[in-house]
Every structure is written in C-alpha cells, then in structure tokens.
C-alpha cells in the first residue's frame, strides 16, 4: 500500500521533528476536523449522484500537524482520511517566513497551489456546503485513464472517470514563494504537475511529468473588507505515459499539450455578510483546444450568533470543437460540438453551531446538466456534523 507507506514515513518524520526541541514556543500544534454526514441523493446517471441514490453515511477526518522550529521556520501538514480509508497527504511542507527580513516566504514540499482563493473553505468547518465548488468537482469527458475524450460515451463523465479542470484541494509537490508590497500580495509556485492533474509518479516514486507547472497569483487588498486577485497557470496536464498511449494525438511529447488557465477571484466581507466569487478560463491544448469557462459565487450571512445561512451558484461552460477524433464503439470518429455538457449547480445551506467546536449543517444541492437528451436526476440533501479540535 503506497499510501500507507507515505503516511508511515510522514508520521516518522513528524515524530522526529517534534522531538527536536522542548522550547515552549516550538511545541507541535496538532488540530483537526472530523465530520460525519448523511447524504440522500437522487439516482440519476450522474457523477453528482452519491451511492446510486441510496442514502448513506459518510465521514472524513482532516489532521493538521504543524511544528514551529523557530520564529520563521515551520513545518505544515494536512493528512486526510475518508470513508474509503484511503489516507492522503495534502500538505506536507517546510515554510521559511520573512527570509533575511525581505518579507518573502518560501515553502517547499507538498504545497498549497496559489490559484484562486478557496483557502480554508476547503475544510468542512469553514465550508458552508458539503462539497467544494462545482468548478473543483466536475469530471469532464476527458478520461483520466487514457486521456481520450469520450463525448460519444457520456457514461464516462457521468460516472466520474474524467479529468477535473481544477483538481479539488489543489496541492502538489513543488516550491512556492509568497510576498507582499503594501496592499499587493503575490505568490508564485513551480509544481511537478498542473492544476487539472497533479503529478503522477512511477512505482519508484519519480515524477512522471516532463517539465513543471508554473502558477502564480497577484492579489490586492485595498480595504480590510475586500480582496481580489488574478491567477495564471501554465504547464503540462498529462503524464508521459498517458501521452504515449494516446496514439491519436498528433505528438507524443506531453509538453505539447499544456494547460493554460487564467482566473480571477474576489472576497468581500462586512459585518455578518461575506461573499466569495471566482471565475476562470481554461484551455487544454489537445488535438483541438478544449476550452472551458468556470464560475462560482458564494454568499454567507450570520443570522444569529450560532446560525448562518449560505448560498452558492457555480457552473462550467465548455467550448465547441470541430472535427475532434474521439473513441467510439467502432474505433474513432470525428466529432463536432461541445466537448462536454455545460453544468450548473445551486446550493443552499443552513448551519448551526452547537458549540465552538461542533456544528451541524444541512445542505441542499440542485444540479442541472444542460443540453443533454434526458437530464439526470441528481439533486442531493446532506446533513453533516463537524467537530473541530
């Protein structure tokens, strides 16, 4: 079990670093979030349907184990486990803050990719909803196992075998630099993979990708109540192996098939109200450019000290392609049209804090797939309890 080896190595490393010092200010800080949920969705043929529409319990744990070596050197980690018992290390990085009093921070290791402003809202306590924004969740018709576009066999996308435009939590191995100049902040990272498909690794753990993905964000905070940013990323979104097996591609070098993505984000918060918005335009360079536009807008309002309500709208709009060669039952066929069905999701939630450490939320998710013959029934209701420690 590769994942278990990774976790074991991570734990040994943690124990080693945490035994380095007994200075009061350099103690380890362990915290986390545990959540359990009951999800009851509809049973339509859709990637958004959970457990084929049968009600089910789910759970997830996020462990944050951090260590402060000195005033400006820290180790940061997130370890996640879900009901499938697969352990994942999202964040595993050394951070050097304010290097030589320059105001620059440097992170190396498994880092948080600086695209957009998802931030803490990826964790159950801070996320008013059950899932991440649709833009981070949707699996396209570009199949991840062979990197072919299965537009004529939509069950691939319906059942979730496709590549995401933004890959959920957005973590990858690499290096990241952060800084600030007055009201402007910036972050630049170089990673093994790319935002659509973070790096894949050979059995001996080496990087499958040629070249690196470069992602950066420039933000501005003109007032405490508002911040906005522009992000850009470019790099290969498929591994060597995938490109070689994708015989119908014009070239086999994956660097010829980069992802180029530009995004913008805005956060506004005043009093009991907050808003987060994000949009991006993405191009996967392929036989024909696979273009997509994604957006997400999220509102939250604290009705009482313990109760808040939230709503989110998000969608993906896909570009049209002319003469794309796609796999079919009889081999390959030429295809013209949208390379995936546009999707739109509306979510609403109500949250109640039982204590500072425990909250309960009820989320309703309405999913709409556009321009399909028969729209799948895939709406969802989730009740979730979150404990933080």
């Amino acid at each position: 079990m590769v994942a278990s080896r990774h976790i074991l190595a991570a734990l040994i490393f943690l124990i080693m670093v945490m035994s380095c010092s007994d200075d009061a200010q350099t103690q380890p800080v362990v915290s986390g979030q545990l959540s359990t949920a009951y999800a009851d969705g509809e049973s339509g043929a859709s990637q958004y349907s959970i457990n084929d529409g049968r009600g089910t319990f789910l759970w997830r744990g996020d462990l944050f184990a951090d260590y402060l070596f000195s005033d400006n050197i820290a180790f940061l980690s997130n370890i996640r486990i879900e009901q499938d018992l697969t352990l994942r290390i999202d964040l595993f990085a050394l951070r050097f803050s304010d290097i030589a009093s320059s105001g620059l921070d440097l992170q190396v290791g498994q880092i948080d990719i600086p695209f957009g402003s998802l931030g803490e809202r990826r964790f159950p306590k801070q996320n008013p909803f059950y899932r991440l924004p649709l833009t981070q969740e949707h699996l396209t018709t570009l199949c991840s196992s062979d990197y072919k576009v299965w537009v004529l066999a939509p069950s691939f996308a319906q059942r979730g075998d496709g590549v995401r435009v933004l890959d959920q939590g957005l973590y990858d191995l690499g290096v990241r630099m952060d800084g600030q100049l007055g009201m402007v902040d910036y972050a630049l990272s170089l990673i093994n993979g790319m935002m659509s498909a973070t790096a894949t690794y050979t059995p001996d753990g080496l990087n499958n990708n040629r070249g690196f993905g470069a992602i950066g964000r420039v933000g501005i905070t003109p007032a405490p109540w508002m911040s906005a940013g522009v992000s850009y990323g470019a790099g290969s979104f498929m591994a060597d192996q995938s490109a070689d097996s994708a015989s119908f591609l014009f070239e086999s070098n994956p660097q010829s098939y980069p992802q180029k993505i530009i995004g913008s984000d805005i956060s506004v918060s005043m009093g009991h109200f907050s808003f987060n918005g994000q949009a991006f335009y993405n191009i996967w360079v392929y036989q024909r450019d696979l273009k997509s536009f994604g957006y997400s807008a999220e509102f939250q309002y604290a009705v009482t000290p313990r109760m808040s309500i939230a709503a989110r709208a998000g969608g993906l709009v896909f570009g049209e392609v002319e003469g794309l060669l796609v796999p079919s039952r009889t081999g390959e066929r030429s295809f013209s049209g949208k390379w995936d069905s546009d999707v739109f999701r509306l979510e609403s939630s109500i949250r109640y804090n039982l204590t500072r450490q425990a909250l309960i939320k009820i989320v309703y998710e309405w999913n709409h797939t556009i321009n399909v013959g028969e729209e799948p029934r895939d709406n969802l209701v989730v009740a979730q309890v979150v404990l933080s420690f």
Partner: protein
Amino acid sequence: MLNRAGFITYAVVIGGLLLSLEHEASAQVGSIQGKVVVLAQDDIFDEILRGQSLNRYGGHHDGPEPEPYLLSEKAVVYISSPVQAPLAPPAKNPSLNQKGLMFRPLVLPVMVGTTVNFPNSDLVYHNVFSYSSPKEFDLGKYPNGTVKTVTFDTPGIVNIFCEIHAYMYATVLVLEHPFFALPDDEGNFTIPNVPPGSYQVSFWYGRKVLSTKSVNVRPGAIANVKFSD
C-alpha cells in the same frame, strides 16, 4: 448677609459634618488586601505566537506587534460569594481591545449591567463572538478604528473568541458586584469598600480560577489574603 466670621464658622461646621459622615461610612466597610504570587511558567503568550506563526490563510500582518500580557491583564481577585449591597454598574465603559492579534486584557472583570467596548486596534478585520450562556453575541467583522459594544446583563463566565483568528481568546467575568481588583505588576491588590461579612475570595489567573480562600471583613479593618500557584 453672612459676615466673614460667620462664613468661616459655617464652613467649619459643614466640613466637620462631612468628615464625620465619611468617617462613619468608612468605619462601616472594610477592605481586602493582599498579594498574588505566580511562579509557574505561563505559556498563553507562546500559544498565541505559535497560532500566529502557523496561520496558513491569514496573510501578512502589518499591525501592532504582539506583546506579553502584564500580570494586571491576566489576573483578577474577586469576591466569589454573594454580597448584600445596593450597587450600580460603572458609568465609564471598560474596554476589551484587539491589538497585535490578541485580546487585551486576557481577563476582564465587570459588574453585571456593564457595557464593554470592543475596539479593533489592528489593521485587519476581527469578528468577536461568544457562545457562552450568560451572553451569546456575534459582532460581525469590523475594521480598525471601529468600536462595538456589548452589555453584559447576566452574571457568569463569558468566553470571547475571534471567528477569523482561532487563537484569539479572552474571558469576561461578569460579577454581581464591583468587589474585584486587578493586581499590580508586583502582585499587590486591594478591594476597597467591602461590606462587613464572611466571603469567598477567588484568584483568577489566565483562563481559570487558580484558588479560592475564605476571608472575614470587619468594619474599618483590612482583611489580608495571599494567593500563590
């Protein structure tokens, strides 16, 4: 018309009367005096610094630098048993400041009915809230220079947090009377004008009561009590 001699006589009589009234009043109350001694290492400030350093999503902070708490900001000595006396809350609002990504003081004793100011002295937003049963409130996010207020109308312990900075923490001790004192930096304290009687006196340090002792206050006398950890 009062002549000069008459005026002096009048002033002496009135002055004497006032002095005797004051003496009589002070003779009817006593005071509690003493010293607190804390030898144990306090790691509250280190915890806050660690929380600030390990924060992943807060960005850079250009506001006031955090400074360790003074003893008077984290220690309170107060009567924790009932006191029979007609009392009114203070006319001036005490403050629980947000400065250097910390609440200052760490513990604020107030009399029930007191309105507390919550100024934001940092350059970033704070969102002060409490889920404690004596006073649930959520002040929302507000910027530097803004002062929000909360009136504490039920006695008890109110734990205060910032929704944005999870490591920020303070306590408002809402008491039914004004008989509390903040020790000076040497640990000396005085609770004046205490009605005579037997009381429990508690020493709050940091985030909890460290010890409680019995004292007997007699009219015109000083009751001494010493606390140590």
